[in-house]
């Protein structure tokens, strides 16, 4: 009888937040009801968004890597040609600083590119089923008794301005302000800027500073290489001759440099006014509707805006890629362990006292259920 009741509780017990099928075959029930997973799976393996993970969850990118290999290839090839062909000549005729500066810029560009591409941009994990149910209940409770579908926006007041929060049907939650759902990655991303195919990832709250450093340093690098190549050609053959001989290549280089410089300039403007590309394109704060709307997130001071965008403390990744999946229902002892950080969970976040919370709850249960 006891065991049957115990099993009746379990389906009512809350399901795991992840969408993994209960891996019955993987788990052996231990003596105290806790499970010893035989093949523990990490959360990235069941991540619902369209992302790719490498190095056991340490590195992530969008599933469509876009033209990221092309970006990497172009940078490597251009810099390689520069070091091979231009540097020796310029070192001999000008100064040794040139390859040093070029090398430093090149390394900086590569590192920031890889960090932009491989960092979690600020993905919001999807709502657990209980949260989704709670939100649905709240929406339905707002007196909507007609057959029309309930409204899926919520209004909040931010710095005396009314902002509409939209409900995300995929992630089953009201999106926080400045969060947008990227259709390519199928994730809600905080402070969503844009999805960049050149880096093969979204640009959001967590990797915007890497992205900005990347494009600024890349514009410096391309301008530097362009300058050095022009100098090289001018010294070797004379500038007019060089222009006549290879006008097409020089023109391509010139326009590439200007396009990247233009992008850097645009993002500098965005940083200074604390805007995202998404907001700028949609014209959220330009007052198109006629109301006096200003950006409620701006600190009205360029320096403070730059600081808050680029120098704010690095927020943590919310998706816990390398944590282990929590124990599953059938062998779950009671509802008590559902909210606890699973003792088996080895999270990179170092949830303090995971197993001690479990033991403290068991210790405290007599207090909850006083024996009469």
């Amino acid at each position: 009888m006891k065991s049957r009741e115990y099993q009746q509780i379990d389906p009512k017990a809350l399901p795991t937040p992840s969408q993994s099928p209960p891996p019955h075959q993987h788990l052996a029930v231990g003596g105290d009801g806790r499970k010893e997973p035989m093949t523990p799976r990490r959360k990235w393996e069941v991540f619902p968004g369209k992302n790719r993970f490498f190095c056991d969850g340490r590195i992530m990118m969008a599933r469509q890597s876009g033209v990221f290999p092309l970006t990497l290839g172009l940078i490597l090839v251009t810099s390689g040609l520069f070091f091979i062909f231009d540097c020796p000549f310029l070192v001999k005729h000008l100064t040794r600083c040139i390859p040093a500066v070029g090398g430093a810029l090149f390394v900086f560009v590569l590192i920031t590119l890889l960090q932009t591409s491989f960092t979690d941009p600020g993905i919001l994990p999807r709502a657990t089923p209980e949260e989704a149910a709670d939100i649905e209940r709240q929406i339905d409770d707002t007196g909507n008794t007609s057959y029309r579908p309930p409204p899926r926006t919520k209004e909040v007041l931010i710095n005396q301005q009314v902002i509409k929060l939209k409900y995300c049907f995929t992630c089953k939650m009201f999106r926080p302000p400045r969060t947008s759902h990227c259709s390519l990655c199928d994730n809600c991303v905080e402070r969503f800027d844009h999805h960049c195919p050149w880096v093969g990832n979204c640009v959001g709250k967590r990797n915007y500073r890497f992205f900005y450093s990347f494009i600024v340093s890349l514009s410096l690098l391309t301008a530097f290489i362009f300058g050095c190549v022009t100098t090289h050609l001018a010294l070797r053959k004379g500038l007019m001759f060089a222009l006549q001989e290879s006008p097409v290549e020089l023109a391509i280089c010139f326009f590439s440099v200007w396009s990247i410089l233009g992008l850097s300039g645009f993002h500098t403007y965005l940083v200074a006014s604390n805007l995202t590309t998404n907001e700028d394109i949609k014209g959220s704060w330009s007052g198109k509707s006629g109301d006096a709307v200003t950006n409620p997130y701006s600190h009205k001071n360029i320096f403070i805006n730059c600081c808050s965008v680029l120098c704010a403390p690095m927020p943590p990744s919310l998706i816990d890629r390398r944590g282990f999946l929590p124990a599953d229902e059938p062998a779950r002892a009671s509802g008590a362990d559902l909210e606890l950080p699973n003792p088996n969970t080895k999270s990179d976040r170092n949830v303090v006292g995971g197993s001690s919370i479990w033991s403290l709850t068991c210790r405290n249960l007599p207090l909850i259920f006083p024996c009469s």
Partner: protein
Amino acid sequence: VSSKFHNLQEMQHTASLVTKVFIQRDYSEGTVCRFQTKFPTELDNRIERALLEQTVKTLNSYYVEAEKVGGQSYLEGCLACATAYIVFLCMETRYEKVLKKISGYIQEQNEKIYAPRGLLLTDPIERGMRVLEISVFEDRGSSGSSPSSSMSSCSTAR
């Protein structure tokens, strides 16, 4: 009835979850992490308002500390940029340090205040900083309002 709880396993079996209460984010001050201090009505007879408010206010202050943009964070940002952000791979960031403090605080609150009342707080970081989840367990003192099979089984066993 006292013989019911003669081992931990039985207690685990019979302690079942009634519901979960979610405290949502408060966006009135922008995108900083802040939770609403409005008291959820489901907890009216489970915990005193002042205690929960105090917990939420303390958590909010921790998050403010974590996200503070000031002189120190500016220096850290510049240093990180100068090293091409490699320091983020080596060092624990300030936010992570504060998250550890928060985790310890929540554990302490659970031990002292919430578990004795049949409640359990979940660290918001486990829920993507969307909500502060409070799990409500069966309260034998009050009449069972939820149709839980364990309740009926326990009453029949009694």
